[in-house]
């Protein structure tokens, strides 16, 4: 195997398990435990991506979730394609197939890089200034081209078959981050006895310990300490350890979102295992131990492949056994880079120079480097690099006082390590709305005032040293759990000075030099300065004008440097420039993980009635009404809906039809004050409704508009059986509860939803009584005993029933209410009994036609939330003598009695064969051109088979006064003449309800 940059020994990867993988079609070898980035680096592949705007060749600069450059797509199969993954987080598995992005035709030769040549003419925000002429060219030319150039990876093209799970979890202490601070926090918190969850985004717990070499804790090498600590935590029943688990969002009241990646690292995952699990964790206390992120240096040409963060280089070396180069230049303003230089030196890498910005670097790490004979250059800035697809030289210049540099020296190298210091990860703290404080000494923002039950510990609050981090973490864990524990950690490690540098380095390279601040979005110091020059002073404007910090890394490496540059140009201290808002997610979260199981049939509950399966077996076509499935029509043979509905309508009127009305909302209103309550809620009067009688009820909102309707039966003096529309059931019950609980708590009445207790079978048609007769016990079906709008209780085929004599079709009709479990059997019994009488099943569509023929409204179709009872012809229902009911006062508002309000009327098209479209508009005169004067619209429109012509209901301005008038309905094929007619088209005398 040829992996030229792999060390001979060391690293946490498994040298016994070689793994082959491909990148851009070429196969390489790595080891289990490698990331794609470490394995590519080991193979000497430095070029991993192209930048967003200029298509500059880019290599990896980081080793974790802060990586801005090395974005790749990973394709497991055609349907499992994921773009924009960080190579630093993609774990290697046998056969992994990955490709680079945002380049064509190849990563090494990318046509898009002409943008780089054009870069002087396409600075930040250039698109706001051009592409305006000629106007049409924007749509046809400019925008399509801008769009085509943008974007990073490409979208998946097929439905993702993988499973995703959500779960809720609770704990006393949640620890975010499994580095020394987080581990210590968990150790302490666990002793409090409560539940502790520790989540870390990496593949292994340990944080910075995973790449530490020489430190000892409690006298043990840190590796050993780590292993022991993890084992002891894992053994505790109250501790849950989550790895590959990113805490991505901190929400109100200590709710933290965590995504756990379960299968992406496996070569052949079990299809049943979820790809990711999203944890919604409600924690009593949170300890944030999220560590810190290394800051790059901002210098000209700082983006060539081979230039990377010093601590990332250490990670590659110590954790993955990969040398970042063979001859390395280190550029730094921080001690941490010396640790990297020392480790690399020990591993046999040549350190060509350590260019330190500081005039007098000192301290144990620096001394150790001196002792090792490393070539330290104090007061030295890196001012450029060269190289095509990999860096080949670094340009080092001595610093001569304020912002000036002396003559440069070119140093050949194949890698540059840079470090500006570490930025504490305050992302989650800030998301929690905790207040940050600028620390002038550490040159960083640190957590100050907490907004939630939360505390930060370790590097994320500026406690960078290992000893400090352990102690701080332990104290935080103890405090969070309330455990009275204390512990000290004996640490031996070389610790550096935590201070670093921010902003651009001095250089002598002129205005066109490109010193990148935001790598992924190609934002340079020049862009930031341009934004300031153009008057953008707020950092929020600068962010949006230049797009700095808006890339997929959300500025993890760039935000503080951008602040530094801007502060410099504005001559303001950094805290006065401000900070952009940290938002969730910390790192991008898969849509599928957020959606979880809610897909297909589990997207929303599918509510089906007890009779649903029967209808399905008969070939019914269903429609969605709120969560319910309702049978819409029952086609026979090759019938389409129109044909089926005509047949169903005729059958009902000629014989009898059977209809599943189970979805109607039902509320049992019970108690001595039931009638009083009904009086207050509904527009109707209820006091005089006799027991065993029914009434059509209309419900308004307090603003006077009709919100629901339904038949109400009085079962007993103190008991009403109220029905509502299918979709309105929860709304009506909620509204009633609101009034009852908060306005009239003194009323002795209670509400219970009985929607699902009853299956409801509507039997409508002249033969209805005949069919029922043989089935019913204990109920006299005669018109005298059970007249229209009455009810009786008895049995039907032995099953207790509430039988309503009601009609929504205008025919003799009954609604059989039986307990749900018996719904299907009773239905089948009625069905069988109806066979000799031409019984036909019908669906909602026929129901709609039948009621329209009778001029009955459907709330939500005739009404649209802006109709009063009077508008839809229901004045007769309003209890005029009642002093009050919900909505009454509003009905007295001026607008409610305007003569030109829309009112419900019937319409006949002059040509009875023409069926208007529902929603079609009405005008008074023909031949209008837009904007027309619209006076109404069609709410319902059908072909009426019994009438042999079309009918329509419409809301027309001043409609009732227009009876007989000719109006028009504009349509794409011309104005359709219509005549205003009464709303009742069929059996206006209402004789048929009597059979």
């Amino acid at each position, binding site marked *: 195997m040829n992996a030229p940059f792999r060390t001979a020994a060391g690293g946490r990867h498994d040298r016994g398990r070689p793994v082959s993988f491909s990148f851009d079609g070429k196969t390489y070898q790595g080891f289990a435990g490698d990331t794609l980035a470490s394995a590519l680096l080991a193979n000497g592949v430095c070029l991993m991506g192209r930048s967003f705007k200029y298509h500059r060749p880019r290599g990896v600069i980081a080793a974790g979730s802060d990586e801005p450059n090395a974005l790749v797509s990973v394709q497991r199969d055609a349907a499992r394609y994921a773009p924009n993954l960080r190579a630093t987080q993609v774990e290697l598995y046998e056969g992994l197939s990955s490709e680079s992005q945002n380049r064509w035709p190849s990563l090494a030769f990318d046509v898009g890089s002409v943008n780089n040549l054009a870069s002087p003419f396409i600075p930040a925000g250039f698109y706001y200034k051009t592409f305006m002429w000629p106007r049409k060219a924007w749509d046809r030319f400019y925008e399509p081209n801008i769009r085509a150039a943008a974007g990073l990876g490409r979208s998946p093209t097929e439905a993702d078959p993988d499973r995703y799970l959500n779960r809720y979890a609770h704990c006393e202490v949640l620890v975010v981050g499994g580095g020394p601070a987080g581990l210590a926090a968990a150790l302490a918190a666990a002793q409090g006895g409560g539940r502790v969850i520790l989540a870390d985004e990496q593949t292994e717990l340990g944080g910075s310990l995973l790449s530490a070499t020489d430190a000892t804790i409690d006298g043990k090498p840190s590796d050993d300490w780590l292993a022991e600590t993890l084992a002891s935590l894992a053994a505790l029943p109250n501790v849950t350890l989550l790895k590959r688990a990113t805490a991505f969002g901190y929400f*109100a009241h200590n709710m933290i979102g965590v995504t756990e990646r379960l299968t992406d690292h496996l070569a052949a995952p079990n299809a049943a295992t979820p790809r990711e699990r999203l944890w919604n964790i*409600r924690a009593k206390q949170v300890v944030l131990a999220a560590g810190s992120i290394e800051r790059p240096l901002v210098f000209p040409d700082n983006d060539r492949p081979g230039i990377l963060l010093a601590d990332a280089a250490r990670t590659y070396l110590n954790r993955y056994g990969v040398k970042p180069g063979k001859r390395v230049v280190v550029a730094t303003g921080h001690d941490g880079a010396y640790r990297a230089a020392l480790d690399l030196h020990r591993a046999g890498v040549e350190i060509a120079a350590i260019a330190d910005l500081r005039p007098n670097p000192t301290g144990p790490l620096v001394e150790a480097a001196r002792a090792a004979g490393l070539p330290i250059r104090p007061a030295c800035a890196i001012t450029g690099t060269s190289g095509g697809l990999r860096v080949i030289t670094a340009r080092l210049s001595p610093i001569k006082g304020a912002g000036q540099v002396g003559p440069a020296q070119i140093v050949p190298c194949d890698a540059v390590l840079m470090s500006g210091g570490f930025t504490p990860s305050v992302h989650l703290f800030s998301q929690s709305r905790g207040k940050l404080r600028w620390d002038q000494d550490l040159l960083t923002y640190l957590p100050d005032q907490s907004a939630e039950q939360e505390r930060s510990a370790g590097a994320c609050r500026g406690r960078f040293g290992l000893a400090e981090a352990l102690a701080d973490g332990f104290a935080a864990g103890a405090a969070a759990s309330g455990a009275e524990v204390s512990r000290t950690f004996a640490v031996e490690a070389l610790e550096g000075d935590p201070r670093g540098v921010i902003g651009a380095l001095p250089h002598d390279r002129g205005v066109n030099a490109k010193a990148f601040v935001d790598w992924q979005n190609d934002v340079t110091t020049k862009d930031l300065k341009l934004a300031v020059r153009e008057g953008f002073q707020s950092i929020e404007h600068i962010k949006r004008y230049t797009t700095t910090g808006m890339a997929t890394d959300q500025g993890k490496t760039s935000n503080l440097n951008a602040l530094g540059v801007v502060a410099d140009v504005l001559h303001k201290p950094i805290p006065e420039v401000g900070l952009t808002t940290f938002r969730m997610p910390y790192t991008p979260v898969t849509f599928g993980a957020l959606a979880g199981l809610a897909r297909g049939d589990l997207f929303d509950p599918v509510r089906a009635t007890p009779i649903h399966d029967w209808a399905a077996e008969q070939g019914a076509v269903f429609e969605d009404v709120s969560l319910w499935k309702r049978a819409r029509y029952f086609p026979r043979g090759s019938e389409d809906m129109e044909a089926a509905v005509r047949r169903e309508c005729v059958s009902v009127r000629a014989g009898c039809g059977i209809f599943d009305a189970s979805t109607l909302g039902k509320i049992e209103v019970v108690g001595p004050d039931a009638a009083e309550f009904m009086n207050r809620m509904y527009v109707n009067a209820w006091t005089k409704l006799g027991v065993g009688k029914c009434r059509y009820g209309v419900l308004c909102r307090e603003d006077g508009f009709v919100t629901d309707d339904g038949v109400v039966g009085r079962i007993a003096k103190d008991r009403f059986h109220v029905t509502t529309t299918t979709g309105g059931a929860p709304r009506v019950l*909620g509204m009633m*509860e609101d009034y009852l609980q908060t*306005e009239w708590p003194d009323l002795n009445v209670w509400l219970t939803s009985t929607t699902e207790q009853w299956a409801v079978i509507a039997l409508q048609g002249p033969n209805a009584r005949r069919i029922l007769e043989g089935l019913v016990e204990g109920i006299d079906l005669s018109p005298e005993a059970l007249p229209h709008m009455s009810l009786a209780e008895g049995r039907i085929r032995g099953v207790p029933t509430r039988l309503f004599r009601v009609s929504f079709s205008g025919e003799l009709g009954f609604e059989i209410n039986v307990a749900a479990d018996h719904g299907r059997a009773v239905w089948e019994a009625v069905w069988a009994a109806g066979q000799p009488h031409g019984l036909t099943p019908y669906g909602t569509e026929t129901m709609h036609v039948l009621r329209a023929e009778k001029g009955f409204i459907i709330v939500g179709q005739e009404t649209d939330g802006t109709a009063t009872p009077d508008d839809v012809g229901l004045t007769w229902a309003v209890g005029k003598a009642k002093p009050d009911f919900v909505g009454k*006062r*509003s009905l007295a*508002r001026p607008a409610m009695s305007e003569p030109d309000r829309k009112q419900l009327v019937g319409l006949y098209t002059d040509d009875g064969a023409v069926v208007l479209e529902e929603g079609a508009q009405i005008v008074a005169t023909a031949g209008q051109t837009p904007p027309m004067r619209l006076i109404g619209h069609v709410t319902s429109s059908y072909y009426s088979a019994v009438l042999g012509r079309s009918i329509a209901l419409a809301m027309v301005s001043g409609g009732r006064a227009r009876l007989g008038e000719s109006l028009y309905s504009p349509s794409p094929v011309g104005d359709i003449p219509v005549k205003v007619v009464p709303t009742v088209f069929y059996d206006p005398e209402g004789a048929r309800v009597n059979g």
Partner: protein
Amino acid sequence: MLLITCPYCGPRPELEFSHGGEAHIARPEKPSELSIEDWTQYLYLRANPKGLHAERWRHLHGCARFFNALRDTTTDQFVATYKAGEPRPTGGAA
């Protein structure tokens, strides 16, 4: 997702609740006698403070009771929750 303390059931996740708008707006005894201005106030005018807000919640998927809460709309932190009918608690900086 907020954590809301139902006065009956204790702290519960927001998913179990429905929000009911401003609290302490009693329906007038005799709406028909109200002036149009007063009725409009009752119907539509709601406090929309930036700061402490007395609001109604219903523990819809719990005990189903309406109750009231004092919440700071600049932080979403609850200062108190209390049963319907009880007076708005005094003071209570967030």
